[in-house]
């Protein structure tokens, strides 16, 4: 980072806003201006913000669904294999594959696997845990988890220009605009 004598590579420009409404509006205008690589940070989920930055990701839902299906198959397979093949016990003359009696364990296995998929899928797709991120070095970014709202235009955006983009963000009514350096 600091030991590199050459000009450090920027991560992007970070603009600070006071409220969720202002952030959504700014995000929409930034998209309308043709910027594609943008991100927004808020202390709580802001509805309409994902649409404003045009972000969607259906992978998590599918991951959870697959988790549930795998859990159900494992739960059923385990019970069927144990009860029919590996350790058959005659209980009151009931069939070895007594499916109704397998429903509770099957259900619990489904819920358990789907829940693990939900939590670890969410963390994994979000790239967490991640101890550091360039935006953390923005002055005042500690308020992103408290009471401030941030819009980031990343330097990888083809339209990115340190000065022009900064001016553009300022014109949206940002409280402050900072450029942050990328990590090595």
């Amino acid at each position, binding site marked *: 980072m600091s030991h590199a004598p050459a000009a450090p590579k920027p991560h992007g420009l970070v603009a600070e806003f*006071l*409220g*969720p*409404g*202002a*952030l*959504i509006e700014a995000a929409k205008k930034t998209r309308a201006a043709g910027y594609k690589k943008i*991100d*927004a*940070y*808020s*202390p*709580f*989920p*802001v*509805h*309409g*913000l*994902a649409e404003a930055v045009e*972000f969607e*990701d259906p992978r*998590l*839902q599918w991951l*959870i669904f697959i988790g549930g299906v795998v859990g159900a198959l494992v739960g059923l397979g*385990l019970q069927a294999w*144990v*009860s029919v093949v*590996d*350790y058959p*016990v005659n209980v009151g003359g*009931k069939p070895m594959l007594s499916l109704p*009696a*397998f429903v*509770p*364990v099957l*259900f*619990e*296995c489904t*819920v*358990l696997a*789907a*829940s693990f998929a*939900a*939590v670890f*899928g*969410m963390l994994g797709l*979000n790239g*967490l*845990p991640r*101890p550091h*991120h360039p*935006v953390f070095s923005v002055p005042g970014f*500690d*308020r*992103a*988890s*408290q*009471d*401030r709202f941030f819009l980031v235009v990343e330097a990888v955006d083809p339209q990115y220009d340190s000065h022009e983009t900064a001016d553009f963000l300022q014109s949206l*009514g940002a409280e402050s605009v900072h450029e942050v350096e990328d990590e090595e």
Partner: protein
Amino acid sequence: MSKPPQDRFIGGKQSYESIDRKIGRVVLDQKSHPPIWLITFAMAFLLVQVLGGAVLWLLYKGVGIWGINQPAGWGFDIINFVWWIGIGHAGTLISAVLLLMRQQWRNSINRFAEAMTIFAVMCAGMYPLLHTGRPWVAYWLMPIGPNTLGMWPQFRSPLVWDVFAVSTYMTVSALFWFVGLIPDFATLRDRAKNKIVQVVFGMLAMGWRGSVRHWLRYETAYLILAGLSTPLVLSVHSIVSFDFAVSIVPGWHTTIFPPYFVAGAIYAGFAMVLTLAIPMRAWYKLKDFITDKHIDWMAKVMLATGLIVFYGYILEVFFGWYSGNTYEIAMIKNRMTGPYAPFYWSLITCNGIVPQLLWIPKVRRCYPAIFVISQFVTIGMWLERFIIIPVSLHRDFLPSSWGMYIPSFWDIAMFVGTIGFFIMMMFLFVRFLPMINIFEMKELWQRQQQAEHADHADVGAGPVPAHDAAGAGHDKENAQ
């Protein structure tokens, strides 16, 4: 669409900062704790020593030190297992079921109630494990096989279903709770002044930055977890009731058990939430967040579930009579007039009659009264399990095998010990983790502001700058 102030879920004059401060202070400013914290914690800690002693003696001597016998092979161990797990259910109900129903008033009590769930399930889990007599081979309950005996669990047994249900419930509750805490860990990380506190919360937050991408996936995961927890909580207590209902013991063999157990669980759980919330909100000055309206609504839920439970008691008696079965009729007569009749009538008083006071709005505004009624419900739900378990077992089909069940000193010591453990864990939780969900409160507050001042969407974030007017216009559409 402005709401009258008494209808708000967040009282007082707030801002994002004040919400952070008032909730975060309890964790970050350790000097803010009243002396009552230390007194209660110390008493609970003493009881935990009693629990330790009771468990050690049990491990040394075996389950013979308990009051269980033939014919009453299940006693305090199973009563308390069912009682504790029932108490835990209100936490999941509040956090998951009310989330799915978009009941935003849950936001200030869900964290608290989820913590209660986890600690109550811990207490519950101890009982069946210790009741096995040899808890060091408890892994035989799991399908880890073939173990040294080359055996597998019997998947047609409700007791095996119970192992799966309770361990899944514990795991999913803990996951749900932790996921809910991640954004609040980030807030505490950023507000902490102390370096060590920063590092600890920083690690727990795992680098959470509140990106819109994070939030979108977060909300998806949270909503689906709620959707999974809802049938889960119903399944857990239904399966617990199968432990009884699948057998043929008179008093156990009834189809009404699953719904009646679930209603009872919610009933007991809400009583416990009220028992804890009423003093906590006073001690920690959180009446703006856990408002009078919250207490009122929880009291109403308690009343409603109490009526379902009471209906269950009436139906049990009806079934006994309508079955025409000698043993069923004898069981009902034994409950009402047998050696344990005072317990039965106390149960009817505690669960059926006393909570009817909650119909009166004045009672629902009197916090000492609600607190006392909650104690009646908690005791009543314990008595219910007492009536179901040993009272059904002690006199079954053959009069020659009748007996009596009297709990021993060690039964009581362990029960009191788990109560101490529960209180100790709750008090530690309140001190070291945010007891109210901070980010959900900020979101709720922002919506409340929007509804009240539709023309100032970003009010409270500081002085509203002129250029924000455009943003406000958009939020106005959302608010409708």
